[in-house]
């Protein structure tokens, strides 16, 4: 029995210290204002406070802590991307995730499960081999595996010649993992608040005041706040918020739906994904099967669910695991994803001085939470863009230089 629990049990009253600041009013001025208290925003605040001695920070969210995409993603952690820049970046993130529970003193429940991506065509095999080769050279555990190995890894996966889309090979990423997505934002936010960061929920930024090309203050529904600098970390609303500062972004915003079944005894350990069928599945530690797939087909800032997507995910998953026919759907939901032309994020400087961007996270945001927090904090603290995220600068589009990850993103594309 873990010591921590023994301590709880033997006390008479539950520890009544709030994990988060109970700030009442906003101050007149903060060194840093972070717009968006999701995983990224909370992580940035944490690293600033913990490693850079900066804690005069307002972490603002128009809703509740982590209520945006952090609450809605399917919690996959992996680094089996395609480009060198991408692989280096996500590799760092996976490393940070590994030690995160201990860093934060908060169990983010990270589980090494391994991720298997399925190839149903020669083109997919080519693409997987490319990823496996790049991954391998950068120290990320990925390999192209054959049908027999797939059968051994996932015995209840249907690997037959007579299926409509026979599986030809797979990309096995041993570093693939999952975590409790809410715990990540809570752990970071708690760590930040413990060090003096002020969390202000239900606080919406309504305008951003720029003077002489530099951001000076933001106006919220609870008053005006002066700021040394601003970071926007509002996945799903990046274009809308950036516009407040007069910034345009290369983003199109689409819903991404997901669903979960009732809980069952465990039968599936690895994460399994089929880009061709537009579906991926994992069985959580609660025993529920989480299913996700392709982005919605048209732009929308709304988290409504559709019957079509549920039908599509169900059809697709039964091609892979026919026995899941008996599993019962419990709930559907959606997040709102900011898609970029090259499926890579936008991090760093903007055309407005002291206004920093953490945007364009599409379907690849959760897995980057720790490395985003660390690098953006470094940028905010030093004013210098860390080399690891330089490839993701907004300017790259003006140079027609993309970090193109089409083909390595989730089942969406």
């Amino acid at each position: 029995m873990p010591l921590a629990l023994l301590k709880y049990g033997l006390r008479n009253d539950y520890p009544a210290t709030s994990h988060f600041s109970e700030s009442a009013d906003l101050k007149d001025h903060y060194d840093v204002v972070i717009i968006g208290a999701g995983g990224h925003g909370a992580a940035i605040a944490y690293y600033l406070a913990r490693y850079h001695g900066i804690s005069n920070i307002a972490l603002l969210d128009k809703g509740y802590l982590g209520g945006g995409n952090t609450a809605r993603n399917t919690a996959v952690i992996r680094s089996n991307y395609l480009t060198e820049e991408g692989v280096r970046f996500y590799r760092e993130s996976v490393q940070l995730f590994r030690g995160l529970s201990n860093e934060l003193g908060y169990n983010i429940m990270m589980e090494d499960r391994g991720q298997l991506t399925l190839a149903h065509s020669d083109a997919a095999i080519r693409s997987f081999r490319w990823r496996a080769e790049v991954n391998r050279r950068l120290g990320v555990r990925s390999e192209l595996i054959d049908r027999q190995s797939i059968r051994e890894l996932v015995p209840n996966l249907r690997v037959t010649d007579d299926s409509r889309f026979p599986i030809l090979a797979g990309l096995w990423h041993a570093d693939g993992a999952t975590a409790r997505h809410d715990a990540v934002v809570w752990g970071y936010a708690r760590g930040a608040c413990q060090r003096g960061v002020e969390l202000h929920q239900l606080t919406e930024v309504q305008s951003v005041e720029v003077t002489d090309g530099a951001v000076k203050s933001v106006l919220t529904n609870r008053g005006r706040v002066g700021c040394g600098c601003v970071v926007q970390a509002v996945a799903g609303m990046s274009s809308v918020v950036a516009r407040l500062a007069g910034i345009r972004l290369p983003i199109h915003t689409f819903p991404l739906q997901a669903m979960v079944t009732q809980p069952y005894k465990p039968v599936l350990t690895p994460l399994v994904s089929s880009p061709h069928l537009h579906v991926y599945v994992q069985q959580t530690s609660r025993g529920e099967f989480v299913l996700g797939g392709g982005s919605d087909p048209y732009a929308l800032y709304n988290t409504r669910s559709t019957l079509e997507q549920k039908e599509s995910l169900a059809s697709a998953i039964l091609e892979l695991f026919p026995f899941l026919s008996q599993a019962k759907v419990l709930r559907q939901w959606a997040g709102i994803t900011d898609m970029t032309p090259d499926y890579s994020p936008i991090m760093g400087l903007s055309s407005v001085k002291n206004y920093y961007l953490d945007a364009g996270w599409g379907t690849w945001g959760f897995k980057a939470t720790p490395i985003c927090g660390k690098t953006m904090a470094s940028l905010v603290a030093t004013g210098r863009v860390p080399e690891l995220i330089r490839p993701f600068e907004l300017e790259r589009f003006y140079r027609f230089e993309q970090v193109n990850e089409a083909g390595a993103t989730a089942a969406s594309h």
Partner: protein
Amino acid sequence: MSQVNRLPAPQGSLVDRAQTVSFEFEGQCVEGFAGDTIASALAASDLWLLSRSFKYHRPRGVLTMAGQDANTLVQLSGEPNCLADRTPISEGLQVTGQNYSGSLRRDRGSLIGRFARFLPVGFYYHAFFRPRGAWNWWSAWFRKKAGLGVVDQSFVGEGFDKQYRFCDVVVIGGGPVGMSAAITAATSGAEVLLLEEHTVLGGSLNYARAGIDANAEKLRRKRLVSEVEAAPSITVMTSATATGWYADNWVSVLCGKRLHKLRARKVVLCSGYLEQLALFHNNDLPGVMMGSAAQRLIKLYGVQPGKRAVVLAGNDEAYGVVLDLLDAGVAVAAVVDCRAEVSSDERVTAASHRGVAVMSGHAVYAAHGDHQHLASVEVRRIVGQGECASHGERINCDLLCVSVGVMPAYQLACQAGAELNYEEQSASFSITRLPPNFELGEAWDVENFPWPIFAHPQGKEFVDFDEDLQIADIVNATLAGYKHVQLVKRYSTCGMGPSQGRHSALPTARLVAQATGTTIAETGVTTARPPFAPETLGHCAGRSFYPALRTNIHHRHIEAGAQMLQAGAWYRPAYYGDDPERAIREEVLQVRQSVGLIDVSTLGGIEVRGPDAAEFLNRVYTFAYMKQAPGTVRYALMTNEAGVVIDDGVVCRLGPQHFYVTATTGGVEAVFRKMLQWNAQWRLDVVLMNVTSAYAGVNIVGPASRAVLEPLCTGFDVDKTAFPYLGVRRGIVAGIPAMLLRVGFVGELGYEIHVPQHCGEALWDALMDAGESAGIRPVGIEAQRLLRLEKGHVIVGQDTDAMSNPMELQMQWAIARKKDFFVGGRSLEVLERRPLRRMLVGFCANPAGSVPKESHLIIDGDNMIGRVTSCAWSPSLEKIIGLAYVDPASAAPGSVISIDVDGRRTVSAEVVSMPFYDADGLRQAL
């Protein structure tokens, strides 16, 4: 055990006493009647223990008797997590409990209940992670403990399908309000669909009691049902559950194995109310149930719910329950009425006349069990909100009926965008802000007792049965800083179990409001999401439907022993025979030395006609077409606005205003659609048609091809002068009207023959016949890929990726500089001013070494400087050839590059200029 609790007729409107059904529960044989559910049959035999709870493995039994809770989840073979109070029994059915160690009755897992104090809300977030990596070990243990039923991995779902339905009005709920609404709608001329989730119409009329007359509901039901049945425009569906509302009144309805997708002009929601819990110590004991559950047991199934009952009342409905219990021979020891004043409702008076003791202003403070069933309750006077006196009275009973309030079945309305509003006056939520074309049925008067929540020093006053959450868990979540009701939900998992908050939402709203100093209205409940009731993935999938496309020549490929591959939805022959290496090699040599036949029917084809046809093509492709002579063929390269290569093909000019354009098999649909989109803005005078599936295509290719083809042609000449390379002609081939192209893709003399698609097979047969003496053979896609590689031709999507521009591909020759404008042109200008980052080059590797595969990397020391995109052993040249991206510094012919083959070997290769085979292009121009 014969059915000791069974009541005599007329109780039990759903059961047929003439049909006895035997089934098994936990290995024990049980008898019931046709019409019984598993839960009602078990109850009839005095078997009340149905399940073990998720966390503490507490014994659980009937709560709502209507499938609204998850206490009744049992395991059937091939179906875990089955609602026992909704599933009918059948002869030989085998049912077991779930989630226990040992047996349902003696579950070793219940030991964990002793450690409850060590497992506060969110306990797993604060432990189990030290030392680093510890969670990986713990999570395996948690994983085994988690989950309810067991999925049967050999199960194959069968017989699921879907149906579309349409109606003017869909009425959801076949109770008194629903039936009245359906009749009203039908009277005004609408086509009405009336949905009822249970097996019969009636709703609350089947079990509730609004007054002292025991028959009033029966009579009213009979009248309404006959009116519904008499109305020709009302269609009734029973055992049909509306599980979700989607845009524009698209409603999913589950009925048996069928998912109905319903479009209704108007939705009328008459799904009534869900009876709610009271919170007190051990409120989850089997024997504690909703008042309406007891009434359902009595009236629907003819089962006596207990011998000696206490009724916990917060409204007058409780007294209808009292009267029903008395009529069923149940002794009512007391009514514990939370309200301070006695109501004057006739049911209250009647109960009193029948000698029932009423304790006003009292609450049940605790329930106590014996052998996993209720044995007594402790009743105390209420002294404040949620507070009781320090002592009370013990009353023995084996049944506690709770009737303290209701919650509307709001989920479908809220999925549609309605909101929930809390009224302090009635202490209840109601549905407001309905979207258009969505109505509610007539509302009842609801009386909720405002605070049926009594915290106990030993806890176990369950707020959420699915997740085993007690009052302290909810309150402590807020104290830990998770104050927003959404954070409470996520931190505690309240409402996240199979009953999705049906009974936990209301007390949670009350507790969180109190703990955070806000109002219940402000606190609210968490978001309602589909599905309202569980749907299996089998229902959602229905019959699998993934169309497959076959060319008209498909059968000939199969007959010739082709191994088919999938290219999008098309099936194409990869090679013919059993040994791929040998087959491909022979097919390649066949084409180089003699003559082969390739089915190219899947190739995209677009007709472009009109005065602006040439101008249009000039704008969508990089090359120039204005001055292209009729009867000629030109290469076509397509870039998008960012200058990235997205497709290629050829443009054939058939006349001054008539072109036929080919596109890749996989790209043509998107290309065609994009062309139309462009022209919707340019508004050029041009007509476009996607004729891909209108034509079958056969490529007859090889030095002997002309000789084989010539005798079959009518209306045109095939000699070299009359029909040169890069020409297009129309005429008759083997009696079939045809268009023939001479292109250089595989680099031999050849003719790509396009005929109406239904003539494909006939053309194939004619050519195979004509070529027999020349030894003609069918040639597959793999050989074609190799042949084009020998010529150094690029395959879009294989040798190009999401970033490739024409400069990298050494295709500047395909960019017509003099054009004013083409899509991508401006971006190419920008890109040309920047240094190239990579180039696609041809390479040859040592014939004795391993053959690199596509996507193997080109390395320079530690750096990755490129990758292979195509590579193969060339039978024509007898060496390993390929295409690769390399950095510009290594792109000059003669450069040596290193290829990393699977991290085990490095293969050395030399960059060469292309084409590899027939550099002067003489053979294709024969």
